[in-house]
């Protein structure tokens, strides 16, 4: 099988370094010989090591777990590390940085700042006055197994930001919380350890920048790499907000 002719892939990549005075965004072309099982991660590193050491992009786990490498691949937001080049039969792959985030350079964007702000805004932690005083020598508080599973289902979000890039509402309204924030809040809403009331949750998302601003275009649902149930959760939160208030 080594006799197969490997394809020559064409990568068209947005290049722009905002820290270099006078630099302007442009698309640059690179050629890479495809290898079996090649991912965008492998291809980009090859480009950096062998062709252009200045090119910027972010990878950490390269296994689809950490959420670092979101980018627009042929028009769709995806995790680059687990996108195989074989998925593109024409052999032309266009890469753009995720929109909606501050650009660091080329394909690298600052998702960290946005995600920390989101966590602060929805107060992404267990609210329980007594949590700090738990006697750690005693048996832990019990939890129904299916509740634990349900929380985990919603906690699988990796904060990659693809949902925000795919969100038309977010494009129009910068303060819109977006699916990542709704999902986080839904996760705490089902958690019996979090003592926040419906009213307190309403304070956070009961307006147009929150769950009522969503236009239900559901780009979040389409592009979530963890297949989280965004549509269901947004509907659930809305119903809860509308009834609870």
């Amino acid at each position, binding site marked *: 099988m080594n006799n197969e002719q490997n394809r020559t892939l064409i990568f068209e990549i947005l290049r722009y370094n905002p820290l270099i005075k006078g630099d302007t965004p442009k698309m640059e072309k690179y050629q890479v010989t495809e290898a079996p099982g090649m991912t965008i991660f492998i291809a980009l590193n090859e480009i950096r090591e062998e062709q252009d050491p200045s090119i910027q992009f972010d990878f950490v786990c390269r296994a689809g777990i950490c959420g670092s490498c979101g980018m627009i691949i042929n028009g769709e937001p995806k995790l680059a590390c687990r996108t195989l080049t074989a998925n593109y039969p024409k052999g032309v792959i266009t890469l753009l940085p995720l929109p909606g985030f501050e650009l660091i350079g080329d394909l690298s964007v600052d998702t960290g700042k946005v995600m920390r702000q989101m966590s602060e805004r929805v107060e992404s932690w267990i609210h329980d006055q007594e949590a700090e005083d738990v006697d750690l020598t005693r048996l*832990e508080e019990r939890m129904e197994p299916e509740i634990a599973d349900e929380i985990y289902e919603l906690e699988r979000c990796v904060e990659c930001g693809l949902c925000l890039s795919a969100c038309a509402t977010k494009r129009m309204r910068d303060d819109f919380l977006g699916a990542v924030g709704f999902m986080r809040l839904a996760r705490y809403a089902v958690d019996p350890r979090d003592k926040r009331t419906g009213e307190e949750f309403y304070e956070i998302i009961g307006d147009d920048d929150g769950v009522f601003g969503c236009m239900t275009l559901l780009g979040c649902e389409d592009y979530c790499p963890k297949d989280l149930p965004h549509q269901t959760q947004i509907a659930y939160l809305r119903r809860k907000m509308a009834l609870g208030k």
Partner: protein
Amino acid sequence: MKVIYTDSLVIGGGLAGLRVAIAAKQRGYDTIVLSLIPAKRSHSAAAQGGMQASLGASVKGVGDDEDVHFGDTVRGSDWGCDQDVARAFVNTAPKAIRQLAAWGVPWSRVQRGDRQVVINGEKVTITESDEAHGLINSRDFGGTKKWRTCYTSDGTGHTMLYAMDNKAIKLKIPVHERKEAVALIHEDGVCKGAIVRELITGQLIAYVAKATTIATGGYGRLYSVTTNAVISEGIGTAIALETGLAPLGNMEAVQFHPTAIVPVGILTTEGCRGDGGLLLDKDGYRFMPDYEPDKKELASRDVVSRRMIEHMRKGKGVPSRYGDHLWLDITLLGEKHIRKNLREVDEICQYFLGIDPVKEYIPVRPTQHYSMGGVKTNFKGESIGLKGLFSVGEAACWDMHGFNRLGGNSVAETVVAGMLVGEYVADYCADTPLKIDTKTIDSFLEQERVKISDLLNRERGENPFKLKKEMQKIMMDKVGIFRNHDDLTKAVEELKVLNKKAKNIALRNRISSSNPELVEAIRVPKMIKLAQCVAYGALLRKESRGAHSREDFPQRDDKNWLKRTLAYWKDENTDLPEIEYEPLDIMKMEMPPASRGYGDDQTIAHPDTEKREKEIEQILKDNPGIDRIQTQELINPVEVPERYQGKNERVGRGFK
């Protein structure tokens, strides 16, 4: 000159670093965490399988306690660990997991009644008790006597890291992202912070602190094929080494995980085998029972990895264009279990291999996975050579893993060590005034500034990417699972050459701000030094212990080698570290060296072993009727911060 002052500086935003930061902050000290990346993206998130803590709630965990966990950990380490540290660890692990439960980790819970599991290739029904219902569940892992590994489906590390980072956000702990510590500041043998490069602007900043903690994870990327994240390059460990004062411990102790996928080296969790998955060869034959009739696929990681290589050397590997591999078969676990409890494995198979693990076997091969070595600390997490420098988690050699870490003991270490060391960091902040001559800060800053400007100005020289590849290949080919004198000698000589070349790196992209080539040029010389510590330590250690396996010295040699390697790099102009050894005192051991129970026991015994065994016997005879906790306190008293003392409750057993 830009200087930022704080009480507690933590380098690294994974589980261990965040936990230390939380401890110091809760005690009222100003704390800053530095991270290359957003903290939630740290490699801790990739720990799929679970965290060991002897809660003993599940029926297959009944009878478990700190003592059983201690025994497994010490045996797993091949008696290379520090037994005081291992003891403090096992006693605190139940508290750490219960604290995380209160902080929001959705641990999988015990469901009362019957459930079907796979044990030794057979479907078996086990029955969970009513009284355990809703408590934290546990699964089987390699090298453990009980089902002790607590988990959240297969996203344990992810949920632990999210709970921990959320806690840090709640406490308003600043995480300074995209910052890389490139050198430690120190004066008169005391660490005073770090010189840090802002990865976007390229600015150098001095972070000056009372206590500095290195929590930058392992050094897996010294090898060309590793399960580790691309950031696991050991840079924190290296900047400690470069002080010339802080030694690194047991750098030659490098673990290979049995089941990473071929060719990319992404991990499939030990949970696959823990839950009943099997290893098969090219004929579809289950070979592990032939080698290890007792523990089979669930022998310790170092043992399984070696057996797999042995079996492939007999021509039983599955040939592929990427070399031979073996099969991991989880099809017998069934679709429901795989899609839920092994979902990340499922995703990895689908995305990276294009196969469905419900129906097909997974191609696997032993792959670099964990660094037992690191910054050598005492039980308080403080460097034994540089005061005010602490280290925790995989970056440290604390040393609870010795020469082989058990699956599930690494994330457990991060949070337990973080809890304990965090208290000692806070104590240190309380006791230590911050005094530093600004000239010292200036001179450390200047040193780094000059290094970088040399790199940017050099017209011609070595390509940093190429040097790194060469280093990784040397480590993979010559300092891998099986080692021998000839290969190791070659590796050491080749690394010496690379170390010289690394002083002459030149860049094609010569800008000082955000520049991946410059980042590489700063890191690669540090990585080559670490690689040399691993290779040279391995060459000198003429025995086999845990993951360090010498074909020319197959016996564990307690008589001559029951000691910890300490590597110093005191002189910038040399190409080799200085090696010293720290003996392990059998006369203080709770568990004197014995057989691990794999293969034939060929250990060369130490004369103290028998002496200590007799001494312990005598202590027990002199104190009839004492319980297990009193026994431990007599034989192996350990110091734990007051707030984490106290017996641990277990269901059906109380505090006994």
